[in-house]
């Protein structure tokens, strides 16, 4: 997936400026940056939920249906009366569609996915009764079922306990081993250094993109922090474009 001088706007304010580069097929990239750096916006643009303000996004043979997106857990209505099995079975959407009937094989796959994330026995539990970690496991099970080639994870480990993080990291490693392309928004730099070979550091503008060790060098991190501090509401127009 290739990005050409991509500029994205969020509520008509520029959120990501002039980003160019490529997520290689099968790469495992951490998307890192200060709060409000445009990380979630970038993921949403990749999944096609928003149109770029300028520049292009080239998916290189991946269709919309090959993309799986894990929203931030806060975007989910956790009081919604739906049980774990039904939530996970939504992962079969691409095969079942909006109107199709859920076949026995899909339910079976959903059960297997639930077992794979360590939630066996929770099938009939309403999602409102799950802890943050358990809910995140269920969402990963849904992604398992989606069987997508490009996976976009928005803060998968926020509000998640250490053990769940470890289990879900193993799942991500498995997907990486299967040759899927993965982009994950993350905050924990130690975790990124330990588990993600590549990193993209952004602070409204791209700071560094490449092997994690060099991309997240102290100099780059400092630069990212400076840029996010210097940015303020008054300086909205895109400086480079002017």
């Amino acid at each position: 997936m290739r990005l050409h001088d991509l500029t994205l706007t969020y509520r008509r304010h520029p959120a990501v400026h002039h980003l160019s580069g490529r997520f290689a097929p099968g790469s495992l990239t951490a998307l890192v940056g200060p709060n409000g750096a445009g990380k979630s916006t970038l993921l949403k643009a990749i999944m096609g939920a928003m149109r770029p303000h300028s520049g292009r996004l080239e998916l290189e043979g991946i269709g919309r249906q090959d993309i799986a997106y894990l929203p931030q857990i806060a975007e989910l209505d956790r009081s919604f009366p739906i049980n774990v099995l039904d939530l996970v079975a939504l992962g079969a959407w691409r095969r079942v569609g909006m109107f199709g009937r859920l076949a026995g094989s899909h339910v079976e796959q959903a059960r297997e996915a639930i077992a794979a994330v360590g939630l066996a026995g929770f099938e009939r539990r309403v999602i409102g009764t799950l802890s943050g970690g358990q809910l995140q496991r269920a969402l990963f099970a849904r992604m398992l079922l989606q069987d997508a080639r490009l996976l976009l994870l928005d803060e998968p480990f926020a509000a998640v306990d250490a053990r769940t993080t470890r289990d879900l990291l193993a799942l991500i490693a498995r997907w990486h081993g299967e040759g899927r392309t993965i982009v994950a928004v993350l905050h924990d730099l130690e975790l990124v250094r330990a588990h993600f070979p590549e990193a993209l550091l952004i602070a409204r503008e791209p700071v560094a993109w490449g092997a994690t060790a060099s991309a997240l060098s102290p100099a780059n991190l400092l630069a990212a922090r400076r840029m996010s501090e210097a940015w303020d509401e008054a300086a909205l127009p895109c400086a480079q474009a002017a």
Partner: protein
Amino acid sequence: MLDLLAGPFLDYGFMRRALVGCLALSLGACPLGVLLVLRRMSLVGDAMAHAILPGAAIGFLVAGLSIVAMTIGGVVTGLTVALLAGLVSRLTPLREDASFAAFYLVSLGLGVLLVSVRGSSVDLLHVLFGTVLALDNAALFLIAAIASVTMLTLALIHRALIVECLDPGFLRAVGGHGMLVHMLFLALVVLNLVGGFHALGTLMVVGIMMLPAASARFWSENVAGQMAIASLLGFAACVTGLLFSYHHSLPASPAIILAAGAIYGASVLLGRHGSLLASALRLRHLQH
């Protein structure tokens, strides 16, 4: 006892008609109410019911007490207000509930004004509180047709509606047409409110949509179950209200809504999930 409960329906055609109309209304409107509650749009239903009023009034001014004219007018203004309110909240910082409130207050004022221009206060009461005891064939067919369309459409877009509410990002990612589904849903709500207003009037029709739906939340933990229970409770409220109004010579439409209110109160206190009783029992269970 049996005579007290079944007698009025056996003896009088208008009671049977009211019963059939209420059954159709409960089957269509109550499941929509459940979705409105889940989508945190309870007040939107209220707003739309008032938005119907000016349209129905214009229909009334043009063609008198004609079901067709009042229905078309109601649907048109109901949908217009839904669209305008959505637009205002999207284009300005005003939140959706506030923009809906603004539109429905204006609609209510306009509607009452229009009706009183030519009609009598009896006509106004008819529009505001309905005529469940005087449903003619045309009204019954209209309510039944709307209920059928509602159930079929809900069955078709059920999955998308649920996902759009639970996890809108997911629906976008799998390419579901969230906006289209939302509009269809709003159209169904307007249709049912219009159908219901002939029976219960614009002020009361929201009650049969929302009260059973809010009650159902205390009895089931899944959407389909809540919809079925809401329809059941809605119908029970209608029967109770009709009988009460018959035996005590009271107006039917407020009696029905009060019955639904009583069921709501009982559900809050005694329901299986999350009611005060259920919470108290759970607390005791945890303490021992």
